[in-house]
Structures are given as C-alpha cells and as structure tokens.
C-alpha cells in the first residue's frame, strides 16, 4: 500500500551527525545484504557446469525430479481446494471461533517443518488412524503417498493465507449486488468472487507449488529419505551432501533455487498487493 502524502527525507547533505548516522545504517545494510547475495550467487557461479549437466542427467536426479513434480502437482490440486474453501469461509462468514480457526490454520507456518512432520507421523503412524488407513489400503508413513501428504500440510497454510487475502480484498458488496440480482450464495461465489479472485488464486497455487517442491523436514520425517524411493529434490540435496557428492547437491540446489525464483517472480507480477 502506497502511503499517500507521506513525506520522505530526500537528500540533505550537510551536518556531520546526519552523515554518520546514514553511513552507519547503510554500512550494516550493505555488509549483510552483500554477504547474502554473495552466498546465493555462489551456488550459480561456483560449480563446474559440465558436472552440473551430467548430474542433472543422472538416473537419480531424473527420478527425483519426476517424483517431485508428480507429488507436487497432486498436492497443489488438493491444497487449492482446501485453500479456496477455508479462505472463503474465513473471509466471508462470521462465526464463533473465527479467530481460533485462523490461528490453527496459520500455526504450521510458525512451527519448524520437522515438528509438523513428527506430528503427522504420530497421527498417521498410530492407532486409530493407521488402522483405518490399512483397511482402505492406503500407506502414508514412509511411502510416496506420504510425500504428498507432507507437502499438502506444509503448503496449505501458505496458499490459504494468499487466497484469504484475495477474497478479503474483494468488497463483499459485489456479492450483495450479485445476490440482489437473483444469485444464490453459490452463484455469487462462482460468478463473481472466484473470477474476481483469479489473480490471488493463481498466486496461491504458485506459492503452494514452490513450497511443495522445496518441502524437506516434513517429507524427511513422514516419508523418510530413502534413495530412489521417496527421494524428492531436497532429499537428493541432503543425501548427496552426506555422501560428499557436492556436484549432485549443487545441481539440486540450483534447481530448487530456480523454482523458488520463478515462483517469486510470478507471484510478484500477479499479486503486488497481496505480497506480505
């Protein structure tokens, strides 16, 4: 939000005190941001590219990429259904426990991923849920399905927040107008709210996809980090660092960074206002 009419101090190049003050703040900023940039650029400029290419084409990397993509696409689909439902409920309905619901949905973002993974492991790995799952033949713990489940629980809060913001930014009077013209709640949602929130929904999906692809701690605990079985890109990075295979690790790191950057760029373009 542009804060209209707020003045900003422009150039005043005169008193020693003011100059020192600005130099101090600027210096700290430049040193930290410089190191951060350098660190991020290391990943792009350091590796020998021939190694990166051969790593990228290795059987393990191709497996990992394919598995990451498949699980992420499935997870994003589920996440968006959840995010649209919960986001709309939060944005439009008033009910007791509204604030509690918001907090519970936001909680996983504040927890370390590892802890969320442990929680899911306890839920799905113990009775009664494990018994139910066995009856319907679904295996979540240490399985590929577990990857998707871990990704869904990790990414859903982020997508929900973006979608919620998108619905909230739509004046509910649009829906009231639609309803005064004869639409029911479903009609107003389908013909007005969803198309108006289009940008926010797509942005939420992009964020969800990036979170799914990059999800490490939760996947590691719930699905295990087994080579060539539950091996997604972050797992590949971790396993290969452990084996000392830096080229493979850097390759997956580069892929992950590209996905994150692409997501950020798309998100910024779509949704300047919703960005927090």
């Amino acid at each position, binding site marked *: 939000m542009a804060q209209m009419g707020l003045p900003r101090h422009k150039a005043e190049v005169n008193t020693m005190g003011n100059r020192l003050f600005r130099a101090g703040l600027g210096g700290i900023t430049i040193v930290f941001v410089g190191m951060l940039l350098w660190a991020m650029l290391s990943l792009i400029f350091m590796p020998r590219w021939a190694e990166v290419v051969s790593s990228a084409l290795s059987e393990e990397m191709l497996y990992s990429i394919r598995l990451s993509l498949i699980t992420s696409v499935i997870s994003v689909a589920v996440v968006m259904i959840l995010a649209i439902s919960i986001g709309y409920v939060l944005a439009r309905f008033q009910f007791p426990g509204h604030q509690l619901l918001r907090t519970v949905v936001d909680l996983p973002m504040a927890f370390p991923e590892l802890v969320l993974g442990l929680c899911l492991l306890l839920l799905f790995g113990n009775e009664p849920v494990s018994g139910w799952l066995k009856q319907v033949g679904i295996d979540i713990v240490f399985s590929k399905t577990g990857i998707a489940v871990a990704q869904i629980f990790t990414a859903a809060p982020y997508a929900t927040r973006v979608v919620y913001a998108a619905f909230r930014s739509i004046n509910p009077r649009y829906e*009231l107008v639609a*309803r*005064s*013209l004869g*639409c029911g709640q479903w009609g107003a949602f389908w*013909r007005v709210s969803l*198309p108006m929130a289009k940008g926010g929904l797509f942005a939420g999906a992009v964020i969800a996809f990036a979170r799914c692809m990059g999800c490490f701690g939760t996947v590691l605990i719930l699905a295990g980090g087994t080579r060539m079985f539950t091996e997604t890109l972050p797992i590949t990075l971790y396993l290969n660092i452990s084996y000392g295979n830096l080229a493979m690790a850097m390759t997956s790191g580069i892929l992950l960074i590209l996905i994150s950057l692409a997501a950020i760029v798309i998100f910024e373009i779509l949704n300047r206002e919703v960005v927090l």
Partner: protein
Amino acid sequence: MNALLEIRDLSVDLGEFSLRGASLAVEKGNYCCLIGDSGAGKSILLETVVGSFTPLHGKILLHGQDITDWPPERRKMGIVYQDYMLFPHLNIFDNIAFGIKQQKVPRKQTQIRVQDVAARLGIENLLHRDIKTLSGGEQQRAALARALVAGPQVLLLDEAFSALDVASRERMRGLLRELVNDLGVTVLHVTHDMEDVWALADQVAVLHDGQILQTGTPEHIFSCPRPGFVAHFLGARNILQGRVIDCDPSGLTCIEVGNIRFYSIDHAPSGQQVLISVRPEELALARNQLPSTLRNQLPAEIDRMERRGPLVWITGQAEGFRLQAAVTVTGAREQDFKPGDRAIFAFSASSLRIIEQQKVIHPDLALNASIKSHVISQALIAD
C-alpha cells in the same frame, strides 16, 4: 396499510453503527430520500432492506408480506452504490445482463432488454467496452441499468451520485427521475446532498442515531422540521418557546414569548405551549419600524455580525432571547449596521411556524441554545 415497502421498528447492531427501532413506509412509486448525519445508520438501513443483515428486532414488509428472513436473491430489489460496484471481470453488456442471465431468459431477449435500458441511459454505444475505460458518470449509468433491467420492485441508492462531478450528477438526476416515473419503481435513496432531495424526492425521512425522526414531503420537512436534531440538521434556527394566548381560526395565532407577542398563520389551541421557529433568511432588518404588512417586528440590539460567503449573519439580543438573521452583504452595507446598534428584526406571520405543540418543555431547546446550531448543521452537511 398499502405501503409497498414498510420497515417496522427495525434494530440492527453492527457495533459502531446501528439501527435502533427505525420505522418507515414508502408507497408504491414514491421516491423517498433518506438523509441524516454520517454515522446515523443510513447505509445499514439500506443494506438491511436489501438483505445483507439480519435484524435483531423488527420487520421488513414488501407488499405487506414479511420478507425479513428472505435471502437477498428473493427480494427483487436493485441496489446502486456510490462506487458503482460494476463487476470488473465483465464488460458493460455482461454487467447489465447479469441479472437477466440468472433468470435464464433466451439470448435474443436478453440482448433486447439490455439494449433498451442502455439506450434510455445513453450508454448503448459502450456495451462492449471494459468498465475501466468508462468515466464515473458512465459507470454509474451502467450500474443503474444493471439494477433496473432485472425489473426490481424497489430501487435502493446509496449516495449514488456522490462520486460524480456536478455535471454528471445533474444529468443522472434527470435520467433517473424520468426512468423512475416511467417504470413506476419505488425508490429509497440515501443521500447527504440536499440537491438530490429537492430534485428527486417525493418523501424525505431524517435518520439520526439509528432512528427515523421525521418523514414528510421535502417542503414540509424543510419548513416545519421537528425541533432538536432535524431542525439543526436542516438549518432551522431561532427556535423559541412560547404559549398560545389567542387563536382565531380565520386569522392569526398570537404567541407570547416572555412578554413579547408573535403572530403566526399556523394554528394551535389557546393556552398550548409551543415551539416556534423562523428561518434566519426570512428576517429583514431595519432601523425603524417598517410601515408594512410584516406582523412581527421586534426591536433588538445587534450582538454579533459575521460574514459567511454571500451572507452576513446578524445576531440580535432582545429581552431574554436571541434572533439570528441572514441578510445579503448589500443589504447590511446599505443600512450600515454595526454591533451595538439597535435594529428592528421583522418577519411575516407566514414565516413564523409552529414546529411543535408540546406539554413537556424540552429544556435543551428552550430559548436560545441555537446560536451555534447553524455552524454545526453546516459542518454536518459539508461532511
């Protein structure tokens, strides 16, 4: 009751804003303007009528049928907001056709109906444009078309002209007046612009603090405002409390305030306590008694003179009360009045209105608590 729309004792609580037992009836085909200060609950009333809020108490009746619990989509009302609220993902045609599409009307007929109403509002050439390419006035006409094309029983306008420039506003008023007459639609129009009231309203309702304080024709409300908020809000000043000492049905009513007698053409029974009011602009000032038909001529000492734009406001101090006159700059200059001068405050018996007959004395209205009221009401209106 044959009111089309009736609101009975409606209470809605939204915390900051609320309605507290508002009642109003609008007859079929009537144009009702709802005025009041900001925070009075005007928009809430409108949105409760359209079905956005469930009231705590009270009822909304349409054709005598209780629709209080109906969802908005069943009420057949159209609403138009200050900021248009056109759907940004649809072009003008699809915006206007929105309500008809919901009724599953054949495409051909939809075309005809949309084009018809668009032509009447002068936007038939804009139908395939994106809403962002339209001016405010054009957008508001599209919003009006959208609300009218579905054939609403009641049209609700929420400050519908406030965002427009003066020229578009006047054009819109003309178009609306015509359309509303032709379609016979009943209108409830929330506004803070007195020009809307003068140009459009058959009926005015004054809302304050969640309650309807007075309803009536614009002329009636303006000339006989209820004392208290309504009078202040509409700029009535010079409210005095007196007692009727004589009333000749064929002639004038004589009212005594202190030991001064006033004459009014309004009637009230002898002995009755009344509040009387005369608008400052109806007072004339003179050096001496005027040999004229003006029945009320009161000597007073000029207390204060204040120029405000084209007028000079002159406050006079008489025996125990004050009168305020608004005269033109030329008038004041010709007579060369200065504070401290003695002057005759003169006004006709037809200018003096009996605005309330009362048994109980309103202590806060008695005599002259009204010196500052014109400033307050101006501030309210400007807001």
